[in-house]
């Protein structure tokens, strides 16, 4: 992992990314601790691929998504987007960058301004970046976006509350597509939806990727089945670090990290015949507080196969097989 400008095929590269949040107390805001939400993450996303990020609370996946789009500023490390280092850019310099990437949120209700019409929500990015020549071309583009996501253009003037949850999420997708981004970060886009709606949105995202060519996704979710379904590669995170990074088909068949194995075991498969024969062991203990992570490998207190070295040595993410990276001393 070097810090040179990466090749053209890469849309995003995170190098040793670290994002820390200070804990302050008292009137004078004394710093009493630090939450290392993201603690040394290396990732790349290529054009047109979907990278899945999965993990439980405190793993840092949401923080990463916000940092990539620079809602947060990294404390250390670099964020390279389309060959440009955006880690330290100011708000003004970030504007053209933000045209090229967008964010889809989890909550379909909270992510849309309740007082604006669906059409104006979808078209707002066009206005922000001054991409409209005429009223006519603006309306055409908004209609086109509506159709792209499977919404009826006659609903352009309705407010969000008049749409169902699944439809609101489609509005969010349309908005994300408005300026033709090369990367869309999907932060739990289906978690708040009903089962039947989830499939519709997942299919929509996949169809859009195929149809638009060159569109990359970072897909963040806590549901491992969902992530594996949509992603080409999956990164498993625990307490701010990546513990395993591999192709999604290998994730189920040959997981290497004990946490990945535990995560897989914890997810029941909707098939009683399979479940009957599945030997699964439930992980003990609780996720440690990010304020006070364990020494060495942060997973070692809960790890079924812990080596004495794990208690003080911090494992690095290294390649153990073609395209398969694990951060474990024993892998």
């Amino acid at each position, binding site marked *: 992992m070097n810090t040179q400008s990466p090749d053209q095929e890469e849309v995003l590269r995170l190098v040793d990314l670290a994002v820390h949040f200070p804990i302050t107390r008292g009137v004078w805001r004394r710093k009493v601790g630090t939450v290392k939400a993201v603690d040394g993450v290396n990732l790349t996303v290529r054009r047109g691929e979907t990278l899945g990020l999965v993990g439980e609370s405190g793993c840092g996946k949401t923080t990463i998504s916000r940092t990539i789009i620079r809602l947060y500023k990294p404390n250390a490390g670099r964020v390279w987007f389309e060959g440009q280092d955006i880690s330290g850019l100011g708000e003004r310099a970030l504007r053209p960058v933000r045209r090229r990437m967008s964010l889809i949120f989890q909550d379909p209700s909270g992510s849309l301004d309740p007082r604006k019409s669906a059409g104006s929500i979808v078209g707002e990015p066009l206005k922000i970046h001054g991409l409209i020549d005429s009223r006519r071309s603006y309306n055409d583009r908004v209609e086109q976006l509506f159709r792209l996501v499977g919404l009826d253009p006659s609903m352009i003037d309705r407010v969000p509350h008049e749409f169902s949850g699944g439809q609101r999420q489609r509005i969010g997708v349309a908005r994300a597509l408005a300026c033709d981004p090369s990367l869309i970060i999907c932060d739990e886009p289906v978690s708040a939806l009903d089962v*039947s709606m989830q499939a519709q949105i997942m299919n929509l995202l996949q169809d859009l990727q195929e149809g638009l060519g060159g569109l990359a996704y970072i897909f963040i979710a806590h549901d491992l089945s969902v992530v594996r379904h949509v992603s080409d590669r999956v990164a498993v995170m625990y307490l701010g670090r990546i513990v395993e990074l591999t192709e999604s088909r290998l994730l189920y068949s040959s997981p290497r990290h004990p946490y990945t194995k535990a995560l897989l075991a914890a997810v*029941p498969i909707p098939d009683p015949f399979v479940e009957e024969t599945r030997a699964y062991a439930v992980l003990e203990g609780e996720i440690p507080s990010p304020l006070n992570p364990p020494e060495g490998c942060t997973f070692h207190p809960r790890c079924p196969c812990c080596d004495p070295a794990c208690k003080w040595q911090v494992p690095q993410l290294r390649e153990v097989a073609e395209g398969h990276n694990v951060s474990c001393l024993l892998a």
Partner: protein
Amino acid sequence: MSGLERTLLLDVRDLRVEFRTPLGTVRAVDGLSYQLYENEIVGIVGESGCGKSASQLAVMQLIQSPPGFISGGEVIFGGKDLLRHKRNGPEMRAVRGGQIAMIFQEPMTSLNPVITIGGQLVEAVQLHCGLGGQSGKERAVELLKMVGIPAAERRVNDYPHQFSGGMCQRVMIAMGLSCSPQILIADEPTTALDVTTQAQMLELMKSLVKRLSTSLVIVTHNLGVVARYVQRIYVMYAGRVIEEGSTKDIFGRPRHPYTLGLLKSVPRLDEVQGTRLVPIEGMPPDLIDMPGTCAFLPRCPYSVERCQTDPWPELTSVGDGHRIRCYVDLESCPVEHAIA
């Protein structure tokens, strides 16, 4: 499994629950019938709005009234119809918590933030097992140990905010099982928890109900959870059961189009790469203006002439303990069931 003499614990017949809103009456539960036997784990499955949570609240007479009303049906427990009891009368209060207990979705808000964990546990055992004072406190510590809370003697004096989400849920389980009820109802017990915590909770519940010979009802939308833990399933849609049967029957040979639709639209951890999900088209029904015909009709790819004209049918048997509410039996249609 039939033919074996099993004790029937709970017999719910034609339960109906309505909510009166300014826009009309919502028929949340519209003729629900199910049975619960001794020593079994049953799943009630459906998406939001199908009436599964409302039905369980109705069994416990916990429906907020107004705007909700239990407008019909019987809930036979211990030889008596629970719905005949007064909502806050002594009989109902004795049943609630003592013989039928319930755990809810949000563990962090289910506990009173200003009373210690121990205090709340003691309250529960006092009310239903008559254990007060010192024996109550001892029982509270015992319960915490039973659900796997470390350093129980010390933690019994903690407040809910000092416990994590998973630990709060364990406390809820402890409270629920504190007086060895006959039935434990778990309403979406794991939705607010992390995946690994979810697994711990479910395993805990499974082992405890087995130990205490309590029957468990799991209300959920998560098909994986029912596949792993549940022996019999009731699939609900628009306030009624549309398919019921053993877990293997429901997953292995789903006979109702909605059940099949659900199974095909859910991603599986072990699926082959490139499997396409088949979503259920359309949107959930509006429970206010329900036509007399099948509520799933607008979204059903298998409907026939009869479905448009005739009213929604009653449940008919298609196998041993396997019933569906449908004019079309999917056995006659090609059914795909892809396993990786």
